């Protein structure tokens, strides 16, 4: 049995004071820890093609496709007064639909305290519906029927998405890499960047942001890019085969491709700057429009 040496410093009253001090220190630490970030980790058995729905108030959302027929989620909430509700349907067996919804337990929780960062791993064939009010959304490696992503101001990034992709943002930028399904990207003040797509139907629209398209076109594909005041930059390989219809009300047009002029003009376009013609055999249709943004069509080095 160990005894404390009976020195004056460790007399019984002194030890009592010491013990009390330790408790007094531990209580605030405990309170701080109790109010610290909360965490949720869950796994659901699903079909190979479930619908995954996430509605988040603020934070970063990452969704990745994986080989397993499971949805695995890890969410970290800044405040314990924010909760992520989960629901899987049907309740027994492999779920066809898995839903996540963040909500605040206390109406006084605002601003950064609403933050919940969520990472989801979902089956490759999953369809997504992600709404992140404030904050970025990153989706990767998905082959499901559709992926619908919305954010007010965060960056939306979609990489290797094969299904119908819809990305909508008010002020955030949108970046789409190697999309192979139908693509619709809409932002109001954010920019849209599309890199090496293999999609045959692509639409991008922004009011004051830029649009950058880097890559080739699929034969018989249709590509419609439109901005109001932002610039449009199209960078494609010299071998690209497309029919170009570029028009701007007040913006300038620059082109480095040799285009064969079209023999007819489908619509009279008075007072608009336009560039109509085909490059190579003109397999894909490319329509670029702006109000006063500059349109540049350039060959990739």
């Amino acid at each position: 049995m160990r005894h404390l040496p009976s020195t004056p410093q460790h007399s019984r009253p002194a030890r009592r004071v010491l013990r009390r001090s330790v408790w007094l220190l531990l209580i605030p630490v405990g309170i701080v820890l109790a109010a610290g970030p909360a965490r949720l980790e869950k796994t659901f058995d699903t079909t190979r093609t479930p619908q995954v729905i996430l509605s988040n108030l603020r934070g970063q959302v990452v969704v990745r496709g994986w080989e397993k027929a499971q949805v695995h989620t890890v969410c970290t909430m800044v405040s314990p007064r924010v909760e992520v509700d989960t629901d899987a349907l049907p309740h027994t067996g492999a779920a066809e639909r898995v839903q996540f919804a963040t909500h605040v337990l206390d109406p006084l929780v605002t601003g950064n305290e609403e933050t919940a960062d969520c990472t989801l791993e979902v089956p490759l064939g999953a369809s997504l519906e992600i709404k992140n009010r404030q904050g970025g959304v990153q989706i990767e490696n998905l082959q499901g029927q559709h992926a619908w992503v919305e954010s007010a101001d965060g960056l939306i990034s979609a990489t290797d998405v094969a299904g119908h992709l819809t990305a909508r943002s008010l002020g955030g930028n949108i970046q789409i890499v190697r999309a192979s399904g139908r693509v619709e990207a809409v932002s109001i003040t954010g920019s849209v960047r599309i890199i090496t797509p293999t999609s045959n139907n692509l639409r991008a629209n922004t009011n004051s942001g830029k649009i950058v398209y880097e890559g080739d076109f699929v034969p018989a594909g249709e590509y419609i890019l439109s901005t109001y005041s932002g610039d449009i930059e199209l960078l494609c390989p010299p071998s690209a085969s497309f029919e170009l219809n570029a028009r701007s009300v007040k913006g300038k047009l620059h082109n480095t491709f040799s285009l064969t002029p079209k023999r007819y003009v489908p619509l009279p376009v008075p007072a608009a700057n336009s560039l109509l013609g085909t490059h190579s055999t003109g397999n894909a249709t490319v329509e670029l429009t702006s109000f006063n943004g500059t349109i540049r069509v350039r060959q990739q080095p």
Partner: protein
Amino acid sequence: MPEQDDQGQFDAARASCRKFDQGLSAYLEGEDKPEMRAHAQQCPYCRVVLADLEELRFASHHLPLEEPPARVWANIHATLEAEGIIRGPVPAWHRWLPRLVFRHNSAPVSAVACLALLGLTLLVSPRNVQTPESVEWLPAGGRTTAAGAFVPVIDDALIRTLGEMESAYRAHESFLEPALKDTYRKSLRSLDASIEESLEHCQRDPGSVLAREYLVNAYQSKAEVLESALESVAR
């Protein structure tokens, strides 16, 4: 012997508790069951359960009705149609009516109504109307245009409703978190600038099809942004 009596009493109590459990949901739904109340008076455990459930029922009756987002209705409709439970296209007002009936907040109601009206008019508006008698006056971004300026595309009523949506949003935007409010403001400012500029261009050059398309698109985008803003405010 007394032990057997105790066991018998316990079994009888358990049986009446089970019976109470079975009849509980019917009783809470309003069925006349005096034996439920009698059992609750005798059994402290069941009395607490009943009191809790009644309190919950009372509280839930006083909760405000939450309206799901438009997407939910669209999904339900699409699923029902896919499963063959409903057939063919349902008239738009049928789809919207239940939402309007259960709305308690006037701002989203007007937003939905305005959007429907705006969408309809944008769809049916003739793009190449040039005759002076068919053109409508269009104030730019809620401001009065110079006398004699006009743009054929969108009529007065729609501009007014869009203005009402904007007023409804402005009246409630203080409830939004500052960063989100700023995002909406920037978006609306950007669209207002586009509306103003394309409108001026259309006034100078009424034959510019592309400028008119931009004007229509800017109005459409503004309606969508306001709808989203009103949805955020209503939350």
